[in-house]
């Protein structure tokens, strides 16, 4: 888990619960909970079968994500499952209107091994978030391109690489920190795809004209405004196995010849962008 440096709650762009709630007026429902011991929490839900089943889904997700990762340098994935489910009628003879049950939720953990992240397309983002827990088996916002990486708010992305500024450098859009830099590789609709570059050493500065940028196939619409980043979805899908072009023949398009049209234009990220 990552604590965001927010001064106020984040903006919600993709969903507005006030609108969605019209689709399911889940009225009657009561929840109680108690932390019983250092490793056991009980939650009791009373309501319709649909309310109770969604509560089961929610509790399972919360208990999967809100827990500490025992590893500090690597990450862990976790999947919840129903281990025990008992249901009975307290007073069967009188066709009672209440059904009672108990359910035990368990979790399966899987350590993400070194190198595993580089073998799965779009998964190199795990190096950005060591010591994190990934809840598997749960849906995420639908996207047009599968296996494209980690969707993350713009502000959180900036926080992770310790940067607060997005710069337009010629046709490139960059977010640079001391030894790492994010570059927009593609804009598809309202989705912005980023590629993470690193100097390779925490003490070595990375440049706005780093040669790694020349190997990227950037597809950014002409005149794409920086302000458009605020209302977009952002996906980091960098790959540690990207081909190194240093020392190889570089297409003339990406030489470092000065371009008179290149100008710095920048925008700053504040907490409301997260």
């Amino acid at each position, binding site marked *: 888990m990552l*604590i965001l440096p927010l001064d106020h709650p984040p903006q919600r762009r993709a969903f507005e619960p006030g609108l969605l709630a019209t689709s399911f007026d889940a009225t009657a429902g009561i929840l109680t909970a108690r932390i019983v011991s250092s490793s*056991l929490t009980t939650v009791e839900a009373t309501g319709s079968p649909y*309310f109770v089943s*969604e509560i089961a889904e929610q509790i399972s997700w919360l208990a999967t994500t809100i827990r500490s990762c025992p590893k500090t340098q690597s990450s862990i994935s976790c999947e919840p499952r129903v281990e025990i489910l008992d249901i009975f009628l307290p007073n069967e003879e009188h066709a009672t209107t*209440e059904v009672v049950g108990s359910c035990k939720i368990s979790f399966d953990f899987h350590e993400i091994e070194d190198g595993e992240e580089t073998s799965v397309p779009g998964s190199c983002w795990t190096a950005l978030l060591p010591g994190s827990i990934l809840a598997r088996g749960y*849906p*995420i916002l639908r996207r047009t391109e599968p296996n494209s990486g980690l969707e993350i708010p713009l502000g959180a992305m900036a926080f992770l690489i310790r940067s607060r500024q997005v710069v337009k450098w010629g046709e490139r859009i960059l977010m640079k920190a001391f030894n790492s830099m994010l570059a927009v590789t593609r804009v598809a609709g309202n989705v912005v795809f980023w590629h993470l570059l690193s100097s390779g050493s925490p003490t070595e500065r990375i440049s706005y004209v780093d040669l790694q940028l020349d190997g990227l196939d950037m597809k950014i619409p002409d005149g794409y405004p920086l302000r458009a980043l605020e209302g977009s979805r952002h996906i980091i899908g960098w790959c540690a196995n990207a081909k190194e072009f240093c020392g190889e023949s570089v297409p003339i398009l990406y030489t470092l010849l000065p371009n008179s049209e290149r100008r710095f234009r920048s925008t700053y990220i504040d907490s409301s962008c997260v």
Partner: protein
Amino acid sequence: MRILAPGPSIEHHKELAEDKGVSISEKDDDDDGDDGGARSGRQTFQKPLDMLLVWVDSVEPLTRITREPGVTQDEPPATDPTYNTQNQSVEKALPRDSDYDLFIRESDAYQWLLSRIRQHSQIAYPEAKHSMFEIGTHLRDRLRAQKPLSKISRRRPSSQVRMKFDVNWNPLLVINEKSCLCPPSEFIHKVLVLTGSLSEAQATTVREYVDQTWPATGAPILGLLEQLISVPEGRECSCTSALRLLLSNANITFRPPTTTQSI
């Protein structure tokens, strides 16, 4: 998939069903709950697949919903797919049992179905493992197999479920670990968590994910979590779901659930 929800017209379904030799009744089930007797010879009406697909396609996407002033509760919900323009002429031409129709449309089962259909276009599983679907389906299937929950009737209140969940989890351990950086009251807004798969993941705050995945029932669990991490260990906290839609003249506002703490 079997569906008993009202389609473009109940009467229309009835005609179709009779054509196929299947009977369908709009009358209430007997209160004795006996599946035999009055219900003998009746079969569940199953929508033809092509009709079902048309109906699913007609479910409106998630858009802002407005209502005109003076709309009464008896009128069909503006979001109901069966009231699309293309069906309105059919609706007017055929007789309807409005009470039965409204009863079905307002039922938890029907509203839950609409909610899930709408969700389908918004969220997706990034890999073959569908834990959430398995957990929810497992519980619903087992619960609906219980006699009091196997059918609904206008003549009696809906049966309730009381389920106790035991979870090998202690959220306070995490909160205490992170408390120097994030007070409990801000936890759901500030903590970023990961969901998905290695190749396709999403980082969200707790609140964002709950809102996008369970838009209708997520508020109570967030209220409960906020209390759970704020009260001392061993004490009980509770949250009554009071999700109500407050319909103003043109806009829909959302009132969060009221929460009460009981010791």
